[in-house]
């Protein structure tokens, strides 16, 4: 049987999602046994950057023309494009304040050197090309990545949860940080899949996986504000990982 050809490609990002893949230590041999990794710059310098790919996993967000060109080339050479990690799925941290005046930002960071930078307001992959599957997370969950590969190998898309972190948090019978400690825990609006990793360690959810499809941002924001946090700060917090329209909802 021909093994599916796979590319793991990074745009602008921290490579954290690619590192999660490399950290699948117990499964790495199974992984390379099942798929033919052709293009994975983070792991090898011997890459085939031209061949057809059955599946491309693309990490990072689009913050430059160079990113955009690369993404379009990847889209053309692959059959299934998977957005890998919150930056790819939602735009991530680079999109938190993307509507700000770009030249002013450049001046603030680099002074008056007037260097020509290839830079544009950050975008998620789906804002540039068609994305077939989203694997959110900052970083992604190992189990969800492996389940995705296993399902794709069987011709299926994986079933990933699209409900809130609260659901997994309750399944683990954790104390509620929002209700009991009045903390701004983004669990009720953030997509599950992490098994409520942070609230299980008494750390409020920061929404690193992005919102669930049906997130009621407005009602949640009002609840956080009720706990004495300024609405401005609530909205800023909710927009950390995804450019969500908190105030225009529902």
């Amino acid at each position: 049987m021909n093994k599916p050809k796979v590319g793991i490609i990074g745009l602008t990002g921290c490579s954290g999602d690619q590192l999660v893949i490399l950290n699948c230590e117990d499964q790495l041999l199974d992984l390379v046994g099942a798929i033919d990794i052709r293009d994975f710059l983070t792991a090898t310098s011997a890459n085939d950057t031209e061949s057809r790919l059955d599946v491309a996993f693309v990490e990072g967000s689009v913050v430059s023309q160079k990113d955009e060109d690369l993404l379009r080339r990847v889209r053309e050479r692959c059959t299934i494009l998977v957005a890998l990690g919150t930056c790819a799925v939602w735009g991530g941290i680079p999109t938190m304040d993307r509507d700000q005046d770009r030249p002013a930002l450049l001046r603030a960071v680099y002074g008056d050197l007037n260097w020509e930078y290839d830079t544009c307001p950050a975008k998620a992959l789906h804002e540039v090309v068609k994305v077939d599957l989203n694997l959110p997370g900052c970083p992604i969950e190992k189990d969800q990545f492996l389940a995705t590969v296993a399902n794709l190998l069987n011709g299926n898309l994986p079933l990933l949860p699209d409900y809130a972190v609260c659901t997994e948090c309750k399944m683990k019978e954790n104390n509620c940080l929002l209700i009991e400690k009045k903390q701004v825990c983004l669990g009720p609006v953030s997509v599950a899949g992490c098994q409520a990793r942070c609230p299980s360690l008494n750390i409020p959810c920061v929404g690193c996986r992005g919102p669930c499809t049906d997130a009621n941002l407005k009602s949640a924001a009002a609840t956080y504000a009720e706990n004495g946090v300024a609405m401005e700060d609530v909205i800023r917090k909710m927009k950390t990982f995804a450019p969500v329209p908190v105030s225009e909802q529902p």
Partner: protein
Amino acid sequence: MKIVKIPKKKLDLFASILRQHWEIHAPVEQNGRYAFKPLTHWSEARLHYNRTILPPKKYFMPPRETMFHYREGKGYVPAQEELDQRLILFGVHPCDIYAINILDEVFGGKYNDPYFQTRRKNIGIIGVDCTPDEHCFCRSMRADTVEKGFDLFFTDLGEEYMTLVGTSLGDDMVLMAAPLFEPITAADIQKYKQVSSEKRQAFSLDVEIHDLPEIFELEYKSEIWDELGDQCLSCGSCSMVCPTCYCYDVADTVELGSKAGDRVRTWDSCLFHTHALVAGGENFREKRSSRIKNRFYHKQRGMVAEYGRPSCVGCGRCIVGCPVHIDIVQVINRLRGEDHANRG
């Protein structure tokens, strides 16, 4: 029904005798709340508690459960690893026992669920009476006392627990520890009546469920549902902590590089937008308002039609666990036009 009593100071001895045959799980304090957990020492058990974060349903239908494995060449292989675990839940409140009795109807009626049934058989229940707090309304839901569903039931008489024997298994437990139990006296009976009356008067929440299905039917188009839809986060918390929410989702997992895997069922909630989403993209309950309405209707109306009573037992967990303060008692009272029904 056989009724005896056991001095409180002998409970640890009783527990140690039971432990020779069963693993004991009881309410344990967890940062100011309670959770049923396996005991390492009897002293960890808290028989005076308001409510556990998750109800005992977690023992009969775990949040995630492998139903069977599928293996190439072997076909379906039953997953029974955890089904045989014999344990005792020590300190279950009447409302929670009532809820398990309702689950019995659901999983033991027309569609017999072998997973639930096997666990039900292997898990003993020792109930304990309680004092209601400000979120309890089990009395309104007729679930403040139970006649069945427990092996033993304890009522606090001060120095002793009066012990109702509910099943032959419960009788075995008492016989196993026979020297610890004593016959009850006339004074105990008086004390029991006093405790029972005090409990009755301790409720601050009240909700009238008589003709509730009709009220729900009449208020199907009430604007209350839209208001709740704007408020609800669809976070699923209320369903997870509800002792009678039994919806589950079934999906197959597959192992990397093979055609083997597991069929797994997971707690689900009718508040999720995916709950009524079907192939082709049609969603029968697209709007949050219709989903939260469905949840209340199923509890308070649908279950009455199917099983003769609402499936809500008034445990108060959904009230305590809702991040946006949606309160079932207030909703019902508003639907009835009785916003003042809180006697507190």
